[in-house]
């Protein structure tokens, strides 16, 4: 091969090498960098949108808190039950019904009132309530019990005439009532090892 041919060949090799290793490789790196920039810009835009929505979110939060103030959710367990009993007596009297029995359903230990699922914000206090009165009055009492300040889920277990012979129109309704309140944040009790460490 003559020198001229060698030089021409070298020129071609340099051009091809430059294309592959400088232009193509550079394009790949630039494209990766531009993609990354686009992602950052998109995140920044999403952040700007979030910041712009802050006043709306704060209004919405205030509105939701206001809605939740219609019920007593942050009351202690005993105070909640006491308040429900007062409400139930008032409601029954207002609707010409009577409540002969209220019994707590399930075991009366604290774990019975624990949330049914982890992460459930509400803890349940189940009660069985008997309501007596005329059909319409019993139904009105049911409606009012669940709409009171104490949050109570009301369901019918049974409903029957008090006197099977139909002597009067008094109905006895057995209701499942579940009082709900915000579950307190539980801290893990110290284990035996912790107790020993505390004594030591």
């Amino acid at each position: 091969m003559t020198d001229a041919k060698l030089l021409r060949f070298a020129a071609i090799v340099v051009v091809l090498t430059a294309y592959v290793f400088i232009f193509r490789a550079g394009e790949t790196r630039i494209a990766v960098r531009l993609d990354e920039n686009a992602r950052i810009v998109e995140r920044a835009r999403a952040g700007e949108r979030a910041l712009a929505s802050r006043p709306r979110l704060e209004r919405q939060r205030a509105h939701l808190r206001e809605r939740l103030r219609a019920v007593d959710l942050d009351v202690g367990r005993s105070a909640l039950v006491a308040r429900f009993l007062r409400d139930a007596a008032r409601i029954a009297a207002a609707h010409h019904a009577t409540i002969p029995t209220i019994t707590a359903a399930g075991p009366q230990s604290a774990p019975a009132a624990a949330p049914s699922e982890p992460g459930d914000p509400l803890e349940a206090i189940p009660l069985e309530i008997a309501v007596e009165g005329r059909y319409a009055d019993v139904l009105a009492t049911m409606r009012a019990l669940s709409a009171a300040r104490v949050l109570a889920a009301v369901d019918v277990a049974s409903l029957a005439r008090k006197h099977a012979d139909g002597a009067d129109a008094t109905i006895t309704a057995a209701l499942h009532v579940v009082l709900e309140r915000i579950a307190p944040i539980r801290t893990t009790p110290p284990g035996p090892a912790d107790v020993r460490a505390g004594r030591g």
Partner: protein
Amino acid sequence: MRRINYLPSWSERHIGVALPSVVAAELRAPLAAFAGSLALAGVLWGMQATRLHAAESDGAVYAERLAAAQPEIARVRAIERDVERLDALGDRVATIRRSGATRANEMAALGNRLPADVWLSSLRADRGTLAVEGHGARLAAVGTAIASLATLPPYGAARLVAVHEDPVRSGVTYALALEPVR
């Protein structure tokens, strides 16, 4: 035979001095091409390096802006989560507060659907099924009651459990089961 080039060289024409030629004439064009290719490679490298540097600078500026806004964005995200939690809680509270009215309306609808000569004695809920017992003036009236209760909204079917002639009063006693929609 020796060939003589009488054409004056470029240097001789322009500066009047005949400089000795470093590169042979036949190598000039290939050498120029080689030099051109090197120059092209250099220009390409410079261009790509400049573009990459510009992209990196832009990225750094964007990242800096994003990092500066991050604490405020985190606070807004916390409010968003709070709103979602309160919204879910609000929905649940609303459902619970409607529960008594919903069940009472179902019971009222059940009573309203019964024909005039059929009476309700008791009903009992068991895992979604509602057991209904009562008294009817005639057997046909119980049939009318079944047809009517079969279309009661939360239930899909009314199943006859038993009908007996009432030994105490005139007419029949009946037992039905309303089964939920599956």
